[in-house]
């Protein structure tokens, strides 16, 4: 009994030491300007994306199957996630033998978002089978396919993605003939794609050939930290800044609508009006920061719920189906990623990942964790932009040094602002076909 008591005391001391480590070294402030490499034009390109006339040729029709995946490893579903019992993914199979491309969405993205749909069309039109998955930070993935419920760790998310893909590929339609398997992703999804391929190099269950990262981050937490800074500068702390921004957008949209001849405010009007509503650099930056913060709200809520951290949800009385989540949403909207890291993410992983420290957690969420592999394996590629807002100069230089000729850096496009453009798609197809200089054939 004495030994058990000693073990208990030692364990609690170790836990306290790691918690003390957290208190002593919170998430470092991200270096560099909050807009990264982006200037005014890049901010606009990030918000608007490519112009329709610049989009690569797309096919007339793309068949679509929705997959509902039931994973054996997901944690018990909290009541408020009742609708997310199964993971949704999408498959567009060719009628002939073809290589399969797996597409991983960016932060908070579903497997059927507009960006994913564009990539799906371009890849299907080029003759690939296409399988699209949501980001591991998408709430549907967290609920149905995460083994922890705490999203945002490159290694753990990679493991969960790998397990999910193994399940899916083991249950592809029997008539579908797959000659090769590649994986791509954009933004955080690009980093996820590279990690999944590196896992596969050991596990060899998916036989992934090539991986292409489109506008990937280099240091997850630095990129996110910059977006936190951007939010603080453009919208301030608390909800007052969000309210002012909303009021301005509302007035602008209402006045545009009043000047139109329409009788109904529909999607056509909104998509057309979007180009006129935001005008200043600050507003574009605020829109980008707010969009990311809203994705974080879902991730933070899920993480708090699953970990029982008690940040906004009382773990003894979690919200039930039918309860209002408005106050929780308002509270989370004011919380930066650093709060998620310090109050949910780090406490969880310090406890569950043996020997980890705050510094090691941060280091494990840099692409350099597979730096050697990226440098030496000719089957990893990247596309990015010289004015990407999630990168700073050092990070871009690291990507160029590490990947050598296997990275193409476009002079403009912001963050994903050129996703789907002719040249970007042509280069992507060259990389996947093994015709890119410097790559393995």
């Amino acid at each position: 009994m004495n030994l058990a008591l000693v073990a208990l005391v030692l364990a609690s001391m170790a836990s306290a030491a790691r918690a003390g480590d957290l208190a002593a070294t919170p998430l470092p402030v991200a270096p560099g300007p909050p807009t990264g490499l982006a200037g005014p034009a890049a901010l606009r390109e990030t918000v608007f994306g490519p112009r329709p006339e610049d989009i690569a040729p797309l096919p007339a029709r793309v068949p679509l199957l929705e997959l509902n995946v039931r994973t054996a490893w997901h944690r018990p579903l909290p009541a408020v996630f009742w609708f997310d019992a199964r993971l949704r993914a999408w498959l567009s199979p060719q009628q002939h033998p073809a290589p399969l491309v797996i597409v991983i969405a960016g932060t908070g993205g579903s497997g059927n978002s507009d960006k994913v749909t564009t990539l799906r069309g371009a890849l299907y039109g080029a003759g690939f089978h296409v399988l699209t998955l949501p980001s591991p930070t998408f709430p549907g993935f967290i609920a149905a396919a995460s083994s922890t419920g705490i999203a945002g760790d490159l290694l753990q998310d990679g493991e969960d993605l790998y397990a999910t893909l193994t399940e899916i590929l083991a249950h592809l339609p029997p008539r579908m003939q797959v000659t090769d398997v590649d994986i791509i992703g954009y933004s955080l999804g690009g980093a996820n794609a590279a990690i999944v391929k590196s896992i596969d190099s050991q596990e060899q269950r998916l036989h992934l050939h090539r991986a292409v990262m489109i506008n990937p981050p280099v240091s997850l937490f630095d990129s996110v930290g910059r977006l936190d800074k951007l939010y603080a500068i453009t919208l301030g702390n608390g909800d007052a800044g969000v309210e002012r921004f909303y009021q301005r957008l509302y007035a602008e949209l209402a006045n545009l609508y009043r000047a139109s001849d329409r009788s109904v405010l529909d999607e056509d009007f909104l998509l057309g009006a979007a180009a006129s509503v935001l005008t200043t650099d600050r507003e574009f930056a605020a829109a980008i920061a707010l969009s990311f913060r809203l994705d974080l709200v879902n991730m933070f809520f899920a993480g708090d719920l699953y970990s029982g951290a008690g940040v906004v949800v009382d773990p003894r009385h979690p919200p039930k189906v039918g309860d209002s989540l408005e106050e929780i949403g308002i509270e989370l909207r004011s919380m930066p990623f650093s709060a998620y890291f310090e109050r949910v993410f780090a406490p969880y992983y310090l406890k569950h990942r043996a020997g980890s420290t705050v510094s090691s957690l941060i280091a494990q969420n840099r692409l350099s964790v597979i730096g050697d592999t990226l440098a030496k394996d000719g089957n990893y590629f990247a596309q990015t932009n010289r004015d990407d807002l999630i990168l700073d100069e050092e990070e871009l230089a690291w990507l160029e040094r590490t990947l050598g000729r296997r990275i193409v850096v476009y002079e403009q496009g912001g963050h994903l602002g050129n996703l789907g453009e002719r040249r970007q798609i042509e280069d992507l197809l060259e990389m996947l076909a093994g015709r890119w200089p410097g790559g393995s054939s």
Partner: protein
Amino acid sequence: MLLLGCGGCALKPVTYHSLPDQTPAADNAAALQRERDLEAAQAAAAARARSEGAEARRPITPAEAPSLRTYDPLSRLNRFSYRFNTRFDRLVFLPAANAYRRIPHPLQAGVHHFFGNLSEIDSVINYTLQGRLGRGVRSLGRFVINSTVGIGGLFEVAERLRLPNRPTGFATTLAKWGMHPGAYVVIPFYGPSSTREAIGLVADYGTLYAINPIDLYRGTQSWGLGVVNAVDQRAHVDFEYYATGSPFEYEMIRFLYVRKLLIEDSALHPTPKTNSELPAGE
């Protein structure tokens, strides 16, 4: 048999559902056309503003925007309806709409135009009640042209003659008369609405039922037509419950829907009402 089949599906790790084909080339072409239409619309709006001169509408200021919170005194009931609608949509409505989307497009278009043409009757009546006689005459013109040249409304001819479709209903009439949307309401089967919109829906249906054009709204055929109309409308709504994956979706949809209503209302009055003092919250 259906239950046994579904029970089998529930145990499989991966199940497949066939969806309508995506049409990326056409969607991109539509996006390009939308940009061009917007430029033309903005030029027309600027010309209208110049000709209106002193009668130009006073712009809405940011201070007049409604609160970030939405008036939702029926919150618990609405959330129940939202969950019911999610399940109904997944099990019945969306599969029916997806099956409908597979029928040849000209046939779909014909059905859609047919029901749209019938609703012009309601638009004529309501534009008249709103005092917007010009628009009422336009709706009447559309109805006559599409019913005759468009062969009973199966073909949309009027739009090609520069008579664009601008539907309205009794909810908009109430808005024109000064009624605020009221409480947010989620109508079972139907979706997001408000007390005013709900009254409008009943009145619109009642109008067509009373007029009973070509005896479509009485008798057993009316049920079948009602179902076809509902499925056709659902097939034209690009929305899926909880496609966001977010437990905050109810709050988000409520926020967007009510602001859409208020912005539409603002176009009905030259001097906009201040929405910042409307009741708010659950």
